[in-house]
């Protein structure tokens, strides 16, 4: 997906297209090119079991922890795995696509609540990723030049990201209490913006609380990645622009922002996947009773599985979620890559 080589190093392989000609393994374009310039790798190295040996631990772990359980989860989704069978789930009857049918029957109550949860999650993800990206970009761009206190400020900005999620959410839950929280102390007691202190953990406002916490935790990641990316822009580019008479704002618009586009492609995707799948923040904040307005899909599925003990249905919803994420990712990558190729071309 995103592991291809870049820049001025020899590409290790044409993104996996190589090696199709059999087991020699040294026939890729990279190998041919390096063969021209320097003594070729001893033949036996590229061949045979060695790379597989190196990969073995990772492969075994992925199979054990990720892939096998996931396939088991998919199997579960085709069974009627309710309370009655959980104790001996090998005996649970096969139910074909029944669980899926219930999930996508948006006129039925379960499908309707799943759809609601899905839409809430989409909205939450878009707002949260958008804001995180915006704040991260703004801070990275504004802090590109040295100034006094920059190091300190950077440390402060990164701290929310480094905090363990439970420590962060516990603190926010404390801040967001209606009667004794800091937020209402500011909003209601000190600024007098509201007649009544608003609720932040129940009702419709819970959605905003979720967004704020999510942005608070994630924007530093965007900031970190973009800070790294900005360091890759050669100074000469700016110097040349300056000679052309471009001011700071123009430099930002014409040089800085365009040159971090490839980074944004990955960054936005990563943020999207994290945010969409986020379980910790809503679970730690609301426990098992998330308000309707903040009923994120991961907690929704958790409630179905562990709350009502219907693991067949829970797994079916998880599989649908996974398919959706795969689809979005694929479309996103095709779309953004094509866009960029067109530009580059």
């Amino acid at each position, binding site marked *: 997906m*995103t592991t291809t080589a870049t820049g001025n190093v020899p590409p290790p392989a044409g993104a996996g297209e190589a090696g199709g000609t059999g087991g020699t393994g040294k026939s890729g374009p990279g190998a041919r090119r390096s063969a021209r310039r320097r003594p070729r790798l001893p033949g036996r190295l590229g061949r045979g079991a060695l*790379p597989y040996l190196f990969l073995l*631990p*990772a492969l075994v772990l992925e199979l054990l922890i990720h892939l096998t359980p996931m396939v088991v989860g998919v199997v579960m989704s085709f069974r009627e795995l309710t309370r009655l069978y959980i104790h001996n789930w090998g005996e649970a009857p096969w139910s074909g696509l029944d669980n899926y049918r219930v999930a996508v029957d948006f006129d039925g109550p379960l499908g309707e609540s799943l759809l609601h949860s899905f839409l809430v999650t989409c909205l939450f993800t878009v707002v949260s990723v958008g804001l995180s990206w915006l704040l991260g970009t703004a801070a990275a761009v504004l802090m590109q030049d040295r100034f006094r206190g920059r190091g300190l400020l950077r*440390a402060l900005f990164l701290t929310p990201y480094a905090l363990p999620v*439970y*420590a962060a959410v516990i603190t926010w839950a404390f*801040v967001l209490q209606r009667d004794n929280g800091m937020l209402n102390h500011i909003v209601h007691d000190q600024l007098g913006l509201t007649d009544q202190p608003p609720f932040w953990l129940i009702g419709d406002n819970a959605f905003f609380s979720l967004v704020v916490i999510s942005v608070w935790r994630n924007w530093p990641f965007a900031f970190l990645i973009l800070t790294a990316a900005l360091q*890759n822009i050669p100074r000469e580019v700016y110097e040349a622009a300056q000679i052309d008479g471009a001011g700071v704002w123009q430099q930002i618009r014409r040089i800085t922002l365009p040159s971090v586009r490839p980074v944004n492609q990955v960054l936005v995707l990563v943020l999207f996947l994290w945010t969409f799948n986020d379980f910790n923040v809503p679970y730690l904040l609301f426990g098992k009773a998330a308000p309707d307005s903040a009923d994120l899909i991961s907690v929704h599925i958790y409630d179905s599985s562990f709350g009502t003990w219907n693991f067949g249905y829970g797994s079916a919803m998880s599989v649908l979620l996974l398919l959706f994420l795969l689809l979005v990712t694929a479309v996103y990558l095709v779309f953004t890559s094509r866009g960029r190729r067109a530009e580059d071309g």
Partner: protein
Amino acid sequence: MADTARATGRARRSPTAPPPSFVWTRRVVLTLLSLFAAAPIYVMLSSSLKPLRDVTGEFHWLPSGLTIRPYIDIWHTIPLAHYFVNSLIVAGCATLLSVAVAIFAAYAVSRYRFRGRRVFTVTVLSTQMFPGILFLLPLFLLFVNIGNTTGVALYGSRGGLILTYLTFSLPFSIWMLVGYFDSIPRGLDEAALIDGCGPAGALFRVVVPAAVPGIVAVAVYAFMTAWGEVLFASVMTNKTTRTLAVGLQGYATQTEVYWNQLMAASLVVSVPVVAGFLLLQRFLVAGLTAGSVK
């Protein structure tokens, strides 16, 4: 994938002073961001120094009296030290193993062309997308089953948790290290191979030393992942193996929530990761620059 030119020097926009509009924007935006970032941290810090009656009543910016009592009490209210040690063992081992496994895998992907290479990378990366909830119960059942057939107790043990966490951080780690290794000229390790080092020798004498920033970055990421995980820890641990992520719930007891101790404990358990992260952020930026950011 991308084509950004390699950095030829520290990027600096302009050697001349920026215009006032820029300076003012910077001041305003960064001040607001600082307040946003710092407010909860301030609450955490100040509440941890307040007596209990201050934190169960109305919020005040300043404590009625400073006390370090919560920092003493946290160790007695729950076996915090025990959970701390568990978390250290689990996160530490998961990090070491994850880095080791990722180094080998990334080396193979970066330096060899072999059948299934693309399948491997795509599969591993797509596991990042798996909703944890989908494989929580299956993984638990798998561990129990392995325990029943082989006698290796993974369920409820630190070992099971270590295996789980190390795999969680693996995809990102491999991805980042592949990028980093790709940026190290192949000539270096090929020369080492010619000098008679084996492939492992080339990896450890040449590639790994040159990739230290990337490896540190990956280690920090793996440690943070393991230190902060909640969902699997809550189901897979018992009283002897419970980690901080679950144990901290203990301050909210049947009768009351010890907010001041909760804040003090949150602060104490955050210090190792935050300090480590901030000290090593230089490497993180370097690792990201050379590695995944392309």
